[in-house]
Protein backbone atom coordinates (compact mmCIF):
# COMPACT_ATOMS: atom_id res chain seq x y z
CA UNK A 1 0.00 0.00 0.00
CA UNK A 2 1.37 3.40 -0.97
CA UNK A 3 0.66 6.37 1.28
CA UNK A 4 -0.05 9.67 -0.48
CA UNK A 5 -0.39 13.03 1.24
CA UNK A 6 -3.46 15.17 0.57
CA UNK A 7 -2.71 18.90 1.08
CA UNK A 8 -5.69 19.11 3.42
CA UNK A 9 -6.11 15.69 5.08
CA UNK A 10 -2.46 14.62 5.31
CA UNK A 11 -1.14 11.08 4.69
CA UNK A 12 -3.81 8.65 3.46
CA UNK A 13 -3.87 5.19 1.84
CA UNK A 14 -3.55 5.18 -1.95
CA UNK A 15 -7.03 3.66 -2.35
CA UNK A 16 -8.52 7.01 -1.30
CA UNK A 17 -7.00 8.71 -4.37
CA UNK A 18 -7.74 8.90 -8.09
CA UNK A 19 -5.22 9.77 -10.79
CA UNK A 20 -6.07 12.88 -12.81
CA UNK A 21 -3.39 12.99 -15.49
CA UNK A 22 -0.12 14.84 -16.05
CA UNK A 23 0.16 18.26 -14.44
CA UNK A 24 0.66 21.13 -16.88
CA UNK A 25 -1.25 19.48 -19.74
CA UNK A 26 -3.59 22.44 -20.06
CA UNK A 27 -6.38 22.57 -22.61
CA UNK A 28 -5.33 24.72 -25.59
CA UNK A 29 -7.24 27.98 -25.80
CA UNK A 30 -8.71 29.64 -28.89
CA UNK A 31 -7.67 28.97 -32.50
CA UNK A 32 -4.90 26.42 -32.13
CA UNK A 33 -3.07 24.24 -34.66
CA UNK A 34 -3.95 20.56 -34.94
CA UNK A 35 -0.60 19.56 -33.48
CA UNK A 36 -1.37 21.40 -30.21
CA UNK A 37 -4.70 19.55 -29.95
CA UNK A 38 -2.98 16.26 -30.67
CA UNK A 39 -0.38 16.97 -27.99
CA UNK A 40 -3.09 17.82 -25.49
CA UNK A 41 -5.28 14.82 -26.27
CA UNK A 42 -2.91 11.99 -27.13
CA UNK A 43 0.73 12.65 -26.22
CA UNK A 44 2.20 12.37 -22.74
CA UNK A 45 5.66 13.11 -21.35
CA UNK A 46 5.98 9.91 -19.26
CA UNK A 47 9.26 11.00 -17.68
CA UNK A 48 11.62 8.57 -16.02
CA UNK A 49 12.06 9.87 -12.47
CA UNK A 50 10.17 12.83 -11.04
CA UNK A 51 6.71 13.19 -12.60
CA UNK A 52 4.28 16.03 -11.77
CA UNK A 53 0.76 14.63 -11.67
CA UNK A 54 -2.78 15.72 -10.83
CA UNK A 55 -4.43 13.61 -8.14
CA UNK A 56 -7.83 13.78 -6.50
CA UNK A 57 -8.49 12.81 -2.89
CA UNK A 58 -11.84 11.06 -3.18
CA UNK A 59 -12.99 11.53 0.40
CA UNK A 60 -12.51 15.33 0.53
CA UNK A 61 -12.58 16.08 -3.24
CA UNK A 62 -9.30 18.02 -3.06
CA UNK A 63 -7.59 18.28 -6.47
CA UNK A 64 -3.83 18.79 -6.16
CA UNK A 65 -0.40 18.33 -7.72
CA UNK A 66 1.83 15.51 -6.55
CA UNK A 67 5.41 14.82 -7.59
CA UNK A 68 5.96 11.08 -7.83
CA UNK A 69 9.14 9.26 -8.81
CA UNK A 70 8.23 6.82 -11.57
CA UNK A 71 11.28 4.67 -10.79
CA UNK A 72 11.23 4.44 -6.99
CA UNK A 73 7.48 5.23 -6.55
CA UNK A 74 8.44 7.70 -3.80
CA UNK A 75 5.71 10.37 -3.59
CA UNK A 76 6.21 13.93 -2.33
CA UNK A 77 3.43 15.54 -0.25
CA UNK A 78 0.66 16.96 -2.45
CA UNK A 79 0.67 20.68 -3.25
CA UNK A 80 -2.48 22.77 -3.65
CA UNK A 81 -3.00 23.93 -7.23
CA UNK A 82 -2.03 27.63 -7.21
CA UNK A 83 -5.00 28.80 -9.30
CA UNK A 84 -7.44 26.87 -7.12
CA UNK A 85 -9.39 29.43 -5.12
CA UNK A 86 -10.86 26.76 -2.83
CA UNK A 87 -7.56 26.29 -1.05
CA UNK A 88 -7.62 29.72 0.54
CA UNK A 89 -9.12 30.16 3.91
CA UNK A 90 -10.15 27.91 6.65
CA UNK A 91 -7.61 25.06 6.73
Amino acid at each position, binding site marked *: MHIYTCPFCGPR*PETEFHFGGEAGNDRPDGDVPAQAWADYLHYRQNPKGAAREIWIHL*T*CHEVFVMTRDTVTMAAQPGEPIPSDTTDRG*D*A
Partner: protein
Amino acid sequence: MRDRAPFWTPATRPEDILLEGDWITLRGLPPLPQVMVSGDLDAYRAAHDLPEAVGLLAEAEDPHYAVRLARRRMLVVGTELSPRDAGWSAGCATSPMTGALAAFEITGPRAMDLVARATALDPYRPSPSAALLFAGMQGVLYRHGEALRLHIDRGLAAYLANWAAATSLFPDGADAAAPQT
Protein backbone atom coordinates in the same frame (compact mmCIF):
# COMPACT_ATOMS: atom_id res chain seq x y z
CA MET B 1 -46.65 -8.54 -13.82
CA ARG B 2 -44.36 -10.97 -12.11
CA ASP B 3 -43.79 -10.23 -8.44
CA ARG B 4 -40.05 -9.77 -7.99
CA ALA B 5 -40.30 -8.65 -4.38
CA PRO B 6 -39.30 -12.05 -2.88
CA PHE B 7 -36.12 -11.99 -5.00
CA TRP B 8 -34.68 -9.23 -2.87
CA THR B 9 -33.70 -9.70 0.74
CA PRO B 10 -35.59 -7.37 3.08
CA ALA B 11 -33.81 -4.08 3.66
CA THR B 12 -31.89 -4.05 6.93
CA ARG B 13 -32.69 -1.21 9.29
CA PRO B 14 -29.37 0.13 10.59
CA GLU B 15 -30.75 0.36 14.14
CA ASP B 16 -31.49 -3.40 14.04
CA ILE B 17 -27.84 -4.26 13.43
CA LEU B 18 -26.00 -5.57 16.48
CA LEU B 19 -22.82 -7.61 16.27
CA GLU B 20 -21.13 -8.78 19.43
CA GLY B 21 -17.66 -10.30 19.44
CA ASP B 22 -14.94 -10.79 21.98
CA TRP B 23 -14.26 -7.35 23.47
CA ILE B 24 -15.97 -5.58 20.60
CA THR B 25 -19.53 -4.52 19.69
CA LEU B 26 -20.85 -2.97 16.48
CA ARG B 27 -24.25 -1.37 16.89
CA GLY B 28 -26.45 0.61 14.52
CA LEU B 29 -28.01 3.76 15.95
CA PRO B 30 -31.49 5.16 15.38
CA PRO B 31 -31.33 7.97 12.79
CA LEU B 32 -29.18 10.87 14.04
CA PRO B 33 -30.21 14.41 13.01
CA GLN B 34 -27.57 15.51 10.49
CA VAL B 35 -26.92 18.47 8.19
CA MET B 36 -24.20 18.79 5.56
CA VAL B 37 -22.73 22.29 5.45
CA SER B 38 -20.55 23.50 2.57
CA GLY B 39 -18.95 26.92 2.19
CA ASP B 40 -18.05 29.38 4.94
CA LEU B 41 -17.81 26.95 7.86
CA ASP B 42 -16.61 29.51 10.40
CA ALA B 43 -19.63 31.74 9.72
CA TYR B 44 -21.99 28.80 10.10
CA ARG B 45 -20.36 27.68 13.35
CA ALA B 46 -20.56 31.19 14.76
CA ALA B 47 -24.21 31.58 13.76
CA HIS B 48 -25.17 28.20 15.24
CA ASP B 49 -22.94 28.21 18.31
CA LEU B 50 -21.06 25.09 17.22
CA PRO B 51 -17.62 24.05 18.48
CA GLU B 52 -14.67 23.57 16.10
CA ALA B 53 -15.32 20.71 13.67
CA VAL B 54 -13.50 17.56 14.78
CA GLY B 55 -11.20 15.55 12.52
CA LEU B 56 -10.36 11.88 12.14
CA LEU B 57 -10.79 9.86 15.34
CA ALA B 58 -11.10 13.08 17.33
CA GLU B 59 -13.53 13.47 20.21
CA ALA B 60 -16.97 14.97 19.50
CA GLU B 61 -19.32 15.96 22.29
CA ASP B 62 -23.08 16.26 22.51
CA PRO B 63 -25.56 17.87 22.31
CA HIS B 64 -24.57 19.03 18.84
CA TYR B 65 -21.23 18.99 17.09
CA ALA B 66 -19.55 19.30 13.70
CA VAL B 67 -17.30 16.79 11.96
CA ARG B 68 -14.92 18.04 9.28
CA LEU B 69 -15.17 16.34 5.89
CA ALA B 70 -13.16 18.64 3.62
CA ARG B 71 -11.58 22.09 3.46
CA ARG B 72 -14.98 23.69 3.01
CA ARG B 73 -17.39 21.00 4.13
CA MET B 74 -18.55 19.60 7.46
CA LEU B 75 -21.28 17.37 8.83
CA VAL B 76 -23.31 18.84 11.69
CA VAL B 77 -24.79 16.22 14.03
CA GLY B 78 -27.60 16.86 16.48
CA THR B 79 -29.28 19.55 14.38
CA GLU B 80 -32.34 18.85 12.24
CA LEU B 81 -32.87 20.73 8.98
CA SER B 82 -36.17 20.76 7.13
CA PRO B 83 -35.78 20.25 3.35
CA ARG B 84 -37.80 23.45 3.07
CA ASP B 85 -34.94 25.38 4.68
CA ALA B 86 -32.11 23.69 2.74
CA GLY B 87 -30.11 25.53 0.10
CA TRP B 88 -27.83 28.57 -0.07
CA SER B 89 -27.85 31.03 2.78
CA ALA B 90 -25.21 33.31 4.33
CA GLY B 91 -22.32 31.84 2.35
CA CYS B 92 -23.25 28.22 3.07
CA ALA B 93 -25.08 25.43 1.31
CA THR B 94 -27.02 23.23 3.73
CA SER B 95 -28.47 19.79 2.99
CA PRO B 96 -30.48 17.53 5.33
CA MET B 97 -28.56 14.24 5.79
CA THR B 98 -30.59 12.52 8.52
CA GLY B 99 -31.99 9.92 6.15
CA ALA B 100 -28.87 9.71 4.00
CA LEU B 101 -26.27 8.58 6.49
CA ALA B 102 -26.58 5.76 8.99
CA ALA B 103 -24.51 6.00 12.18
CA PHE B 104 -22.86 3.09 13.95
CA GLU B 105 -21.04 2.78 17.23
CA ILE B 106 -18.03 0.52 17.67
CA THR B 107 -17.25 -0.10 21.34
CA GLY B 108 -14.97 -2.28 23.41
CA PRO B 109 -11.20 -2.64 23.88
CA ARG B 110 -10.86 -4.15 20.38
CA ALA B 111 -12.81 -1.40 18.60
CA MET B 112 -9.70 -0.20 16.79
CA ASP B 113 -9.05 -3.73 15.50
CA LEU B 114 -12.08 -3.35 13.27
CA VAL B 115 -10.74 -0.02 12.00
CA ALA B 116 -7.43 -1.75 11.23
CA ARG B 117 -9.26 -4.24 9.03
CA ALA B 118 -11.09 -1.43 7.22
CA THR B 119 -8.33 1.06 6.37
CA ALA B 120 -4.54 1.40 6.20
CA LEU B 121 -4.73 4.80 7.95
CA ASP B 122 -2.26 5.52 10.75
CA PRO B 123 -4.60 5.66 13.79
CA TYR B 124 -2.12 7.68 15.85
CA ARG B 125 -1.75 10.45 13.29
CA PRO B 126 -4.41 13.18 13.49
CA SER B 127 -6.05 14.33 10.28
CA PRO B 128 -8.18 17.48 9.99
CA SER B 129 -10.74 15.52 7.98
CA ALA B 130 -12.79 12.70 9.50
CA ALA B 131 -13.82 11.44 6.04
CA LEU B 132 -12.18 8.20 4.93
CA LEU B 133 -12.65 5.07 2.89
CA PHE B 134 -13.84 2.45 5.40
CA ALA B 135 -13.92 -1.08 3.97
CA GLY B 136 -14.26 0.55 0.56
CA MET B 137 -17.13 2.82 1.59
CA GLN B 138 -17.10 6.58 1.96
CA GLY B 139 -17.36 7.04 5.71
CA VAL B 140 -16.89 9.47 8.59
CA LEU B 141 -15.04 8.25 11.70
CA TYR B 142 -14.59 9.99 15.05
CA ARG B 143 -14.86 9.33 18.78
CA HIS B 144 -17.98 9.91 20.82
CA GLY B 145 -17.74 9.13 24.52
CA GLU B 146 -16.50 5.56 24.93
CA ALA B 147 -17.39 4.68 21.33
CA LEU B 148 -16.07 5.16 17.83
CA ARG B 149 -18.79 6.58 15.63
CA LEU B 150 -18.95 5.70 11.95
CA HIS B 151 -21.37 7.28 9.47
CA ILE B 152 -21.89 5.63 6.08
CA ASP B 153 -24.47 5.78 3.30
CA ARG B 154 -27.64 4.33 4.77
CA GLY B 155 -28.02 1.98 1.83
CA LEU B 156 -24.69 0.34 2.68
CA ALA B 157 -25.62 -0.54 6.27
CA ALA B 158 -26.33 -4.18 5.40
CA TYR B 159 -23.01 -4.41 3.56
CA LEU B 160 -21.18 -3.03 6.61
CA ALA B 161 -22.84 -5.67 8.81
CA ASN B 162 -21.93 -8.46 6.39
CA TRP B 163 -18.39 -7.21 5.99
CA ALA B 164 -17.84 -6.91 9.75
CA ALA B 165 -19.45 -10.29 10.40
CA ALA B 166 -16.97 -11.91 8.03
CA THR B 167 -13.97 -10.65 10.02
CA SER B 168 -12.49 -12.86 12.73
CA LEU B 169 -13.59 -10.28 15.32
CA PHE B 170 -17.17 -11.57 15.32
CA PRO B 171 -17.08 -15.38 15.56
CA ASP B 172 -20.90 -15.59 15.66
CA GLY B 173 -21.31 -12.74 13.21
CA ALA B 174 -22.81 -14.58 10.25
CA ASP B 175 -26.12 -15.21 12.03
CA ALA B 176 -26.35 -11.77 13.60
CA ALA B 177 -25.83 -10.01 10.26
CA ALA B 178 -28.68 -11.88 8.55
CA PRO B 179 -31.55 -9.58 7.54
CA GLN B 180 -34.19 -9.33 10.21
CA THR B 181 -37.80 -9.58 9.12
